[in-house]
């Protein structure tokens, strides 16, 4: 094992990571789908028990569907909470969305305000969509693609 072999091996590794990052690029609808799930969750307290339950069941049902399409489209599955710089983005999205959801629950279920959860849902959708795009940008940069 010599210096040039080590450099060549590291270069091959970086090449593979860059190719993988390019293959993992998501179309706009995929970012929007994640945003919709987040927005739906945040807006759910605006609705009555039956509709709220239906929305939550639909969100839970959509998660494996999205994972299935990701696997089929890319030939791999990348965990959003993977180690690396993307984890900061993922946790940031989670904290903001949870905060919106808590406010939505307090306003919608605690105070009978149905408008605020809907507005927060729109905000949650936008934050989820933009967050997903940001996550991908950070991932691609980290992989050197």
């Amino acid at each position, binding site marked *: 094992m010599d210096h040039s072999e080590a450099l*060549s091996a590291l270069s091959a590794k970086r090449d593979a990571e860059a190719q*993988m990052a390019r293959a993992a690029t998501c179309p706009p609808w995929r970012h929007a789908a994640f945003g919709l799930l987040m927005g739906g969750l945040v807006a759910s307290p605006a609705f009555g028990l039956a509709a709220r339950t239906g929305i939550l069941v639909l969100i839970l049902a959509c998660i494996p569907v999205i994972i299935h399409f990701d696997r089929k489209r*890319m030939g*791999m599955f990348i965990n959003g909470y993977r180690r690396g710089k993307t984890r900061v983005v993922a946790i940031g999205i989670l904290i903001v969305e949870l905060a919106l959801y808590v406010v939505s629950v307090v306003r919608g279920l605690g105070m009978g305000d149905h408008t605020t959860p809907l507005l927060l849902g729109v905000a949650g959708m936008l934050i989820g969509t933009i967050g997903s795009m940001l996550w991908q940008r950070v991932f691609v940069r980290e992989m050197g693609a």
Partner: protein
Amino acid sequence: MDVPTGFDAVLHPPARLQIAAVLAQAQEAEFALLRKVTGASDSVMSKHLAALVEAGYVSLRKAATDGRQRTWARLTPSGRTAFGRHVKALEALAAAVASEPTERQTAVVKNARRTA
């Protein structure tokens, strides 16, 4: 040059290192994607995967998608550890040699000491 600590002969071939690099980032990857990334043929890829499975670094599962049987690969915890160590060994080797003086630099220093 000595073999650096952490160097792993199983992960040394470039295609295997590339397979491990992809699997270290993705939770699971399909055979076709790995073949595309490495540029290896089906048979060569199968041999590399078999060697990684034998070493306990990769686990394989077969799953039907759209009526076709596909092979999915995943890095095992020991594979992840071995890959991390191997990459560190490569980086250490690359850095160490880069910081070592060249033969010419060494000769100049020796010559300077002799004449001082």
